[in-house]
């Protein structure tokens, strides 16, 4: 999505690949802001008044303010020039959540920078100051819609400091992409039964009655007997006590056995199940067309499964 409009699409973009992008002078543009134009009008008024009333000191103030405005242009320009822009690898998010890109602006010229703003096209800018020779992270949010990789759009860095009369800006193409996991299904189908579980004669191993296995947030349909009323009286919210059967068996999350009207719904359902299974510390395995992830548990496994779902070719 490149939304550069009109003449701006011809402007240079600093590339953050492979090295961090440096906003050298060829990448910096500067124009007066509308306040700059207003200020010029006020100065013109002062000038005309000074001419008409032959006010020598009126000329002095007019020229002093005009000089200040011109000099503020240099300061605005140098406030942005020679920043080094890098980015961190963004954390994965689920579709429809905001992806958080962290832009690192670093001073390379031994001077403190003030009110450096960054934004994606059509989003609200975020401001940061940078100490001399220091760096500052600027967090930019980008809404997500689809699963898969979300590439960072062109970032605009700008500043109007110190007087707001000039707007200096620069474009940076970040070398960053955010993993967007599929949006989990909202309705809660129980986790599917697996062949081993059937053998153990327990319908749903995740909710056995033998051992207390921890809490999870109360969901509609949970038996009131299992609500931890003591916890809720401690104002921790409604929690459901969870128990596990003794049999630690493998849960198979299989594409073929997943209900759903279309492929995206199935992916969505599988994502929900991966979430639930991970939350319950199950050992689980994911089987989707072309990929089979062997049973395991823990964070890396969890992310591997979600990434496989995010990148699945569902056509």
């Amino acid at each position, binding site marked *: 999505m490149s939304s550069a409009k009109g003449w701006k699409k011809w402007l240079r973009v600093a590339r953050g690949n492979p090295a961090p992008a440096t906003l050298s002078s060829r990448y910096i543009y500067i124009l007066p802001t509308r*306040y700059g134009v*207003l*200020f010029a009008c*006020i100065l013109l*008024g*002062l000038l*005309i*008044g*000074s*001419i*008409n*009333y*032959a*006010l*020598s*000191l*009126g*000329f*002095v*103030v*007019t*020229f*002093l*303010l*005009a*000089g*200040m405005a*011109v*000099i*503020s242009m*240099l*300061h605005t320009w*140098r406030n942005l*020039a020679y920043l080094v822009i890098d980015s961190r690898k963004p954390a994965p998010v689920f579709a429809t959540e905001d992806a958080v890109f962290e832009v690192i602006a670093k001073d390379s*010229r*031994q*001077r403190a920078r*003030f*009110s450096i*703003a960054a934004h994606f096209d059509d989003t*609200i*800018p*975020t*401001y*940061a*100051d*940078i100490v*001399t*020779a220091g760096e*500052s*992270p*600027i*967090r930019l949010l980008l809404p997500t819609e689809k699963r898969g990789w979300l590439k960072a759009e062109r970032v605009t860095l700008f500043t*109007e*400091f*110190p*007087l*707001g009369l000039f707007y200096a800006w620069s474009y940076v193409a970040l070398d960053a992409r955010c993993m967007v996991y599929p949006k989990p299904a909202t309705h809660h189908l129980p986790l599917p039964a697996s062949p081993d579980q059937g053998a153990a004669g327990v319908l749903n191993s995740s909710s056995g009655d033998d051992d207390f296995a921890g809490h999870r947030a109360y969901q509609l349909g949970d038996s009131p007997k299992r609500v931890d009323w003591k916890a809720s009286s401690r104002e921790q919210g409604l929690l459901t006590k969870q128990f596990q059967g003794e049999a630690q068996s493998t849960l198979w999350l299989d594409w073929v056995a997943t209900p759903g009207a279309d492929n995206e719904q199935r992916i969505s359902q599988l994502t929900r199940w991966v979430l639930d299974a991970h939350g319950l510390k199950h050992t689980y395995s994911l089987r989707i067309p072309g990929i089979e992830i062997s049973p395991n548990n823990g964070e890396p496994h969890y992310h591997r499964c979600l990434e496989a779902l995010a990148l699945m070719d569902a056509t």
Partner: protein
Amino acid sequence: MAQIKSTHNPGNHDLYWLIASFASVLALHVAYLHNWVSLVMAGFAGWRLMVARNGWVMPRLAILIPITLAAAIGIAVSYHGLFGRDASVALFAIMLSLKLMETHTQRDYIIVIFLGYFLAANAFLFNQSIAMGIFMAVPITLLTATLVGVNHPNGALDWRFKAKTASMLLTQALPLMLIFFVLFPRLPQPLWGVPQDAYSGMTGLSDNMALGNISKLSLSGATAFRVEFQGKPPAKNQLYWRGPVLTTYDGRTWRINSYSINGIGINNIQKDQLPEGLVTTGTVSKYTVTLEPHNKQWLLMLDMPTAIPPEAMITAELQVISKEPVRTRMRYEASSSFNYTLQAAGLSEREQRIDLQLPKNRNPKTLALAESWKNQSPENIVNTALKMYREEPFVYTLSPPPLGENAMDDFLFTTRRGFCEHYSSSFVYLMRAAGVPARVVTGYLGGEINPNDNYMIVRQSDAHAWAEVWLQNRGWVRIDPTGAVSPDRIELGVAESVNDSEALPLLSRRDYPLLRKLYLQWDAVNNGWNQWVLGYNQDRQLQLLRYLTGNNFSWQDLVIALFALVTASLLALSYFLLRSQKIRRDAIQKIYDQFLNKLSKAGLTRYKQEGPVDFSSRAVRRLPAQAKLIVQITDAYTQLRYASKISPAAIKAFKELVNSL
């Protein structure tokens, strides 16, 4: 680092700055506003502060609109209208204070700041003194600092930083201001007419003289004009600065003859050509006058003017008048001759009638006295009258007693205490009554040489009135009856001729020598200010450039010079802003790299992520023999790297440290 969304409005810290700037702008204007306007403005600022501090709601439009209307009506009533200079400035000021009541977004703040600059500069309409010019720096700096704060949406900046940034920006703008001030082409004429009241409050000679007018003027220590003479200044008793000539008397007030001002009897003389009827002999004194604005047309010149400025005219009575009232400080060159005869050939019938006119049925005693002199020759009549002033107990005083319906009788026969206008008008009255054509001349007598810059200051307190009588074969002769009563007035000035107890302006008096000396020095500074800053007009501009370059400049040359110099100074500034730090920092980095090289030869390499301090402690462990030096070098490096200012000496010392390793 704190990060806040940009939609945030300026916080209370910004408001405090805005209110402080506003207060300083108000301080500039307070002397020129009606008190209630200043109070209302301060009230709004206070209200806005309370809104911010106590979390009150901002007033709604339903409240603000009636207040706005009431304020406008108040201004219209106090200032008799809304369109004069004073009224428009007051209206603008009060509207700006009202705007504070609905200021909360960044946009509002910026607009108030911009209008604040505008209002501040408006103060120069009322006062362009050195003090005002210096004080102007306060609101300009405060407003700029506020603007800096408002343009930092992510939290409050340190107040010192704001003040420093604003001062730095303004200081860097000074050279540009100077270039523009000197080279920006000046216009000789205003672009359009200015409001009438723009020039109220100027003092000077009036076109009429009621008894008491001039003694009132004598109480003002204000400067009337300053004069630079080419060559030696004339003697004190020749310093009669000729102003309005008053010929018509109605029993109470002497007036200028409307005839001479309405265009009849006005001569437009060419350069080096004398007015009609004036014959001069001897040397001519040339001088340049810088006249303070007095909102009248008189141009003051020594008796008698022989050359007048090109824009001026001269009447038959030898009053020099400019085409427009003098509303800005005016500089003109003139010359005068002290040996002259005026209208020796005779007076016209009309002139005789005017110069013998007296009010009817007034002052019987005076008329009777003059009647008794009629058999003498005119010269003797003059002498008799002067003898009377000299020998009878007349007193020269600044506070004469009031006079009744027959003012001349009362003065000549009863009170006998008066100031120059009493002596000149009673003298002229006597002469006319005795059949000698006579008239009153007003102007200034004397002046003080300022030894600091060798120019003459003539003050309002030097205002004077004397008489002229017309004598056969001699024409108009100046007679100063005040001199008969108080010769000191003419020889030494007003301060020597009245008792110290009388209320002369402090600086016209003689009893504070140190104060006077300081005053004269201060006046010399003021004169320079007037001549070169306030009086910097087209003439001065071209004169200065001719002096500096030896060339005559056209306005096209001015524009080219302006652009060239502005570009050059901006380039110079850019160089310093964008380069200086980098070069020095690079030098430090290079020296440090040498240090790293030396250590890596000893088998100790700095890791990529390792900070200088961590590396130093590792190096100390590996090379304990060099520990002290390594720590010193690291300290010097970190200090230099984070210092705001780096002296070349510090860099040199750092280099020597590294070399000694």
